[in-house]
């Protein structure tokens, strides 16, 4: 049973931001996570601010260099949207893995990112895309990189009076291949890995790697990216396999219901290695002749 709450339904971002006062005021988008927390008494909300009436937050558009995704666009719309499939196939794939079809019908990209559950799918793919987010408050409107936005376990850079309005996602540069790999239990990924790679003259000349679910937040592995750039695939795979100490330092692994820290680190190194090869087969190997 849900405890009583007051429902506000603003029509504009400014009106919504003006309502975000007090700790017990929560933004209600899809509600896929929020309603569960309220039911189980893990969160108290005296007021819910429904942002689904704000038309601008429900748009997906291509501006010539970024796909602009409004924060209340649902996962199901993203996994099936022609613009997402065309420009961001890896995000479409990550979205298609979320929960189950009912969760994807109801849950929104903005809600997923703001909830910041470490065991989530979109953030890992968005880090490799070097996406940015726009957040708006009563008097502020700022843009942040995904890396700055994700702060920790269930924690983002959002201020109490701010809401996430849009995610801007540039496609991968031409000639890059990608892979999104995960293993899953109980609908949530145990570990996920996103990779984007380009091969030139038999060597990796562009690498982006991100890992989710292992520690408090999804992260890029930039030192490892730099270390394997310039190497042929086989050598890069060997370096990745030998990088468990670095990965452990970087990701701050925690034991949780989906796996021990050691297990998740092991799976990470296996998935990263696989992701390199798969990225090359999936568009990253320059075509000759």
């Amino acid at each position, binding site marked *: *049973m849900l405890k009583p709450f007051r429902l506000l339904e603003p029509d504009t971002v400014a009106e919504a931001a003006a309502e975000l006062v007090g700790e017990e005021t929560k933004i209600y988008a899809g509600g896929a996570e929020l309603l569960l927390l309220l*039911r189980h008494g893990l969160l108290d909300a005296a007021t819910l601010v429904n942002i689904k009436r704000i038309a601008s937050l429900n748009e997906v558009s291509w501006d010539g260099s970024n796909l602009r995704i409004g924060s209340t666009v649902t996962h199901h719309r993203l996994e099936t949207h022609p613009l997402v499939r065309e420009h961001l196939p890896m995000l479409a794939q990550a979205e298609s893995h979320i929960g189950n*079809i009912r969760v994807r019908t109801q849950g929104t990209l903005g809600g997923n990112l703001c909830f910041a559950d470490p065991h989530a799918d979109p953030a890992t793919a968005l880090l490799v895309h070097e996406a940015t987010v726009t957040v708006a408050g009563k008097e502020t409107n700022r843009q942040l990189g995904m890396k700055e936005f994700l702060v920790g376990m269930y924690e983002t850079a959002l201020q109490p009076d701010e809401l996430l309005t849009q995610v801007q996602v540039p496609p991968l540069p031409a000639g890059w291949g990608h892979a999104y790999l995960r293993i899953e239990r109980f609908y949530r990924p145990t570990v996920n890995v996103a990779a984007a790679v380009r091969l030139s003259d038999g060597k990796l000349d562009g690498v982006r790697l991100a890992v989710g679910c292992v520690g408090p937040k999804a992260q890029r592995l930039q030192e490892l990216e730099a270390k394997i750039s310039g190497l042929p695939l086989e050598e890069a795979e060997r370096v990745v396999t030998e990088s468990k100490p670095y990965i452990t330092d970087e990701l701050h692994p925690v034991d949780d219901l989906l796996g021990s820290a050691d297990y998740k680190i092991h799976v990470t190194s296996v998935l990263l290695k696989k992701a390199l090869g798969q990225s090359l087969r999936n568009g990253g190997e320059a075509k000759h002749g």
Partner: protein
Amino acid sequence: MDEKPEELKTLQSIEISLTVNEKTWSGEVPVEEVLLDFLRYRVGLTGTKRSCESQVCGACTVLVGNQPISSCSYLAFEANNRLVTTVEGLAVGEQLDPLQSAFIRNVGTQCGYCTPGQLMAAKGLLLHNPTPTYEQIAEWMKGNICRCGCYPAIAQSILEAVEERQKP
């Protein structure tokens, strides 16, 4: 056991109007009321089942528009001005939906508790993709748990319903 939950103490009610299985319902609902309780206790349709209340099991699946949702975790006011279909809305008069006939023929059920949700999830799939492959069925239906383990018969039932629909 499914007793009517004690009357919600609400701070706020909303006037809504929606269509449930082709019948219009208009009235006030508390903002806190979930669609499952609305269907079972206001409309009197008890085919939709309560189970995990966590968006995991799928027993409470209904369609809003043509999309499957967990009615246990979906606020009733969100269905304002929309079409809701429950398992009671599948048959046309005495004529069962091809999915229902196929579930009966294949015994796609044992205890039957998850069946209304399985049927509604399958209906949502066929509205979305009228000719799914076995793999697409498995992927879509993975959100509906059957503790009796009738999955092979459920998948077979959906495949047969697809075939039946394709018959001239």
